[in-house]
């Protein structure tokens, strides 16, 4: 028998249910009318995970992330069954980071305590804004007060690693109201803060009715972004990724796997995986997922499937590493790809370095805050694609 390896792995579990769909959200989630689907769905997830018993034997997952949707919309019994199922399906590392998303007013102290005891050790709470008008434009069903209660009870339930999600670029938002939201979040002293710039996605109610709202313009959003970076820095939160800020040592290890091109397995409809050099995802349909898992016809639930050859990996590496404030380390780049990053991309980078969008010093290349906020523009200029839409070297 071969020596058992302990390769690192991230586990993502998607819970595509919500109590109410937010007006900006285009992720796969819905509000089920028949709640019996919860049990069937958790059954399918657990059965799906068990099928990785052989392949997964060499892995020791060190991060777990239950996201959504709103995981806490599941009845506590089902959610607990899911948490325990994850633990029994994989050999989780001792110091596993076990995150779960939660919306205010969907879980009370009792439930939170049970989830904590079952093994969840990091909570991510969606606050978005403290301004009632902004929350209502987003179609959020909670208030800032609800968040306060949720946060306090999470602490009481033993969560010592909590993230707060915030949004900017919301209709009617001003720099002042954004500052108030930031101040409120920081006053609760979470370990981690994420701030997402609202993006209008076609097909969402907010996008379809966009003309009915007044959005902050590009310059105002840029001002909000740079304000937040400075404000959070002063409050002890270091930016480590375009949208993520954390106290020292509290960076989200699971999300870092995405940016570090490490392996992760996703479970549930619309979940994405990067495993054994393949990126794949499952079709966004709960019923199809349940049917395929039950009928052992897993091929029919695969949505995207793409093997990632070396040239593709190089492009991904640049695209993903540049999201991080640490940027690209020339020595590591050389070790991984046998190429000198500065030599290969120097001529293209020069104008961005001169323009103050990229800093190139000490053997590393990284975006300035201004560069991060236009990173798509710069990356789409630097990176090359072949005719099939793959990264070209």
């Amino acid at each position, binding site marked *: 028998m071969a020596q058992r390896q302990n390769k690192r792995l*991230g586990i*993502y579990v*998607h819970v595509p249910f919500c109590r109410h769909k937010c007006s900006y959200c285009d*992720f796969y989630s819905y509000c089920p009318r028949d709640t019996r689907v919860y049990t069937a769905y958790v059954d399918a997830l657990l059965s799906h995970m068990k099928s990785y018993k052989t392949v997964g034997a060499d892995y020791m997952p060190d991060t777990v*992330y239950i*996201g959504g949707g709103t995981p806490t919309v599941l009845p506590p019994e089902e959610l607990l069954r899911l948490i325990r199922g994850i633990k029994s399906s994989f050999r989780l590392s001792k110091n596993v980071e076990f995150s779960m998303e939660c919306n205010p007013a969907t879980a009370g102290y009792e439930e939170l305590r049970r989830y904590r005891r079952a093994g969840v050790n990091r909570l991510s709470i969606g606050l978005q804004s403290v301004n009632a008008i902004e929350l209502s434009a987003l179609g959020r069903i909670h208030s800032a007060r609800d968040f306060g209660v949720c946060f306090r009870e999470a602490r009481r339930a033993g969560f010592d690693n909590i993230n707060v999600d915030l949004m900017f670029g919301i209709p009617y938002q001003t720099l002042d109201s954004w500052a108030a939201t930031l101040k409120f979040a920081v006053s609760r002293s979470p370990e981690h803060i994420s*701030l*997402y*710039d609202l*993006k209008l996605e076609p097909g969402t109610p907010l996008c379809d009715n966009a003309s009915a709202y007044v959005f902050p313009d*590009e*310059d105002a*959003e*840029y001002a909000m*972004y740079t304000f937040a970076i400075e404000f959070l820095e002063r409050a002890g939160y270091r930016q480590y990724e*375009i*949208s993520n800020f954390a106290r020292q040592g509290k960076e989200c290890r699971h999300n870092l*796997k*995405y940016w570090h091109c490490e392996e*992760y397995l*996703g479970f549930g409809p*619309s*979940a*994405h*995986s*990067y495993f054994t050099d393949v*990126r794949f*995802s499952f079709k966004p349909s709960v019923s199809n997922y349940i049917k395929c898992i039950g009928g052992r016809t897993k091929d029919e639930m695969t949505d*995207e499937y*793409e093997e990632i050859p070396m040239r593709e990996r190089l*492009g*991904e590496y640049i*695209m*993903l590493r540049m*999201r991080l404030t640490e940027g690209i380390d020339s020595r590591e780049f050389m070790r991984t790809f046998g190429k000198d990053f500065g030599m290969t991309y120097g001529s293209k980078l020069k104008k*961005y370095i001169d*323009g103050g*969008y990229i800093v190139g010093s000490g053997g590393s290349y990284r975006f300035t805050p201004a560069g*991060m*906020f*236009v*990173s*798509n*523009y710069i*990356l*789409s*200029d630097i*990176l*090359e*694609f072949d005719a099939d*839409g793959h*990264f070209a070297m």
Partner: protein
Amino acid sequence: MTERQKKIRNFSIIAHIDHGKSTLADRLIEATHSVESREMEDQILDDMDLERERGITIKARAVRLAYKAADGEEYTLNLIDTPGHVDFNYEVSRSLCACEGALLVVDATQGIEAQTLANAYLAVDADLELVPVVNKIDLPSADVGRVREEIEDVIGIPAEGCPAVSAKTGQNIGDVLDAIVNDIPAPKGDENAPLSCLIFDSYYNSYLGVVVYVRVMDGTLRAGERIKMMSNGMEFDVVEVGYMHPLGLRRTDFIAAGDVGYITASIKNVSDTKIGDTVTHAEGGAESPLPGFKEALPMVFAGIYPADGAKYNDLRDALEKLRLNDAALSFAPETSVALGFGFRCGFLGLLHMEVIEERLEREFNLDLITTAPSVIYEVDLRGGERVRVDNPSNYPPPDEIERAYEPMVSASIITPTDYIGGIMELCTDRRGIFHDMKYIDTQRVELHYTLPLNEIIYDFFDALKSRSRGYASLDYEPAGYVESKLCKLDFLLNGDIVDALTFIVHEDKAYGRARKIALRLKDNIPRQLFEIPIQAAVGSRIIARETVKALRKDVLAKCYGGDITRKKKLLEKQKEGKKKMRKLGTVEVSPEAFMAVLRLDDES
């Protein structure tokens, strides 16, 4: 007059656009059983797709119809279809010279329009017998009596009892055929005199070479004989002569005085067979050509560039193919700093330009960038030399100019009286000189103006239509050059002149045009990493200024649940868009944005 000639009627149909000319032609073909009904298509004479779609006739066509009249005799009716647009007035006049009569089609709901009048005058000038035909009597708002009166009052020809038809339903079409036989004179001409044939159309066919459509005025022509084009002296051996059946060419032994027919003679270029030219025998031919020949001169010029620079050769091939059939199209290579390699093309007018652009895009599958249309300016230089400028960016600097001249047109506008105010205001705004206003009836007037051509080609049609709710109609003809205070208006992006955006404008119009274009540039240039100043300049004087603010935000904040593929696709799409961008100096602009800046279709 020979017995043969007595049975021939040569006629054309003239009408304002949309008054039903092509539909009437279809009905005449049908009523004479010249084409089996199963072979019949709508607008059978308009065989370019573009013509069918737009319901206009771009090139003149001709067909021969056989009609057995009430007197029991069989007549040969030669119908020469004419283009119904002001750009092609010269072609219309030559077609009319090939006929003895014309059907003047007037819409029973609309009455006389600008082109009805312009074409009627052309027909009267050509000594044609005019047969009025009131069309669209099937429409509820038809007023046959009023329109007949209008024809009598305005054009001065009897119209009482003239055919009143519905070309759509075929109602009373027989009346038209009888009127053609009874009212239009048979052709004259001596079959034994020296040959003279009037060219009224020609087109290139890849098997036959150029097919020349002619009206034989005098003499007889047979296959094998040697002919000469009188304008340029070029000689050819005739391969075939014949007539035009609605479904194709039919060869005959000869064509003779009074006939409308075709000649093929292994001719390679349509430009050797100029419309209006006279064909005669190389030996013993006519002494002098038929009167009225003119070279078709382009009036409107624009730069045409491939959106993808690599397609330059494709564009050249396509233009060469189009020129085979269109002697009025001219083109010469030119280079623009902004747009790369392309062609300066000359057109008869705006419609001609649009037609060529559309054919290039459709038939040759090319994406084009076209600069704003311009006219030819004439400039007296200080040194005494006179130059002609067809590309605004070649306009000489002010200190070298002694005098500048711009082409004028004499325009006739017919409009319902309700819109007179708005239209007069428009014409004044476009530097028009008012001549007179005539009442056509109590509700409509005809206005006469002299207008600079460069004002007409700058969204004048659309402005006219929008000020008259589509009711006003326009016709114009060249009216020479006049001295004018012109200036060259340049646009600078980030400090660099964009040559493709240079306009020549009248001094009084420079500010307005500068502000309008600068604003459009601002609205259409995507934000880039640096701020882009837009300036409009006359010489070194900046007269308008806008700024495209720097790009601040272009980021995907969230990569949810490790969906890396989505981000990759987004970047790829963005990259693709970037590749299509044209560099205007240091500024990247998409072809769509460039065209949006130059679009002439609004008055804002």
